[in-house]
């Protein structure tokens, strides 16, 4: 019961933050609010027992991505223009999608059910085998580094590719600017 209460309070705060992001025009405030959003979602991850996910989200979502976005708005414009079109069509799209998703969740097992399909197969198996196989107290570490090590390898490849992409896109930014200055 207390769990549900905590979750609901966190949810209300998350939704309020998201709505404030919808309303705001100043991008600096929007970026700060998105950082707040990440921190609140990290709190929610703690109540969902995912402590590793929580501190990754706090470090990456509230930390690094805020820094990246601040860098971006420093290089571009600090305010957003009010959009000229009406919000009618987007609202309909969002409502229809939301209704379809809610219809999809009606068949889901109840929140926290111990006999849900997700709790039946590999998850408990990893929990049972970790003390003998790997002998690491944190099961998330054991799965991340050992049972599903190839996933982590793939993740590293993706991050590497994205890093190269960012470097290629941004390299020569200053050089091109100097060229423009010379032309003017």
């Amino acid at each position, binding site marked *: 019961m207390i769990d549900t209460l905590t*979750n609901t309070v966190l*949810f209300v705060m998350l*939704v309020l933050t*998201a709505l404030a*992001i*919808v309303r705001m025009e100043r*991008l600096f405030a929007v970026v700060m609010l998105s950082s707040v*959003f*990440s921190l609140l*979602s990290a709190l929610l991850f703690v109540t969902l*027992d995912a*402590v590793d*996910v929580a501190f*990754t*989200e706090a470090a990456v*979502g509230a930390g*690094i*991505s805020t820094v*990246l*976005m601040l860098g*971006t708005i420093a*290089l571009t*414009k600090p305010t*957003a223009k009010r*959009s000229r*079109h009406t919000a009618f069509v*987007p*609202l309909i799209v969002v409502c229809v999608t*939301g209704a379809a*998703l*809610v219809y999809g*969740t*009606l068949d*889901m*097992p*109840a*929140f*926290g*059910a*111990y006999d849900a399909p997700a*709790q039946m197969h590999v*998850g*408990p198996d*990893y929990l049972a085998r*970790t*003390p003998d196989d790997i*002998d690491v*107290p*944190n*099961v*998330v570490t054991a*799965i991340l580094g050992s049972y*599903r090590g190839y*996933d*982590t390898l793939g993740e590293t490849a*993706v*991050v590497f590719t*994205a*890093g190269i992409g960012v470097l290629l*896109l941004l390299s020569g930014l200053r050089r091109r600017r100097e060229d423009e200055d010379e032309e003017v």
Partner: protein
Amino acid sequence: MGQLFNLQFLTGHIHYLLFIILMMTGLFIVVDKTNLVKKIIGLNIFQASVFMFYVSIGKVTGGTAPIFPMDDKYHVDKEALQGIVYSNPLPHVLILTAIVVGIATTSLGLALIIRIRESFNTIDEEDILNIEQEMTRDDNNKHRDVAEGLT
């Protein structure tokens, strides 16, 4: 549909409804707002709510975080394990990977925004569309002039 008014069903599924509300707020920002940085933030909100939804599937009522107790030799204490319920660690691992991949794609998107600003001098979708239409019109006029000169 009658089960919607059953209290037990409702308490079991209200979390999913709340996740979907958050998700749809993110989708609304992506569809409605014309500023590109705001679109990326909307995408991040959408993504974060998908993560919450996914992690909530692994939650077991009365369970705790999947970290085992240790004995004094820094091995897993197998006797102390008995009778403790743990939440499913597998969704946590998958989402951990997804968060890191998410920041990689976000940074790529932000780099693209910086390049767009360099080329168009704006990061507003409607302005970019107008500039592109103008460029196409100029191109068409130029082609027409050349074609008329040939005949």
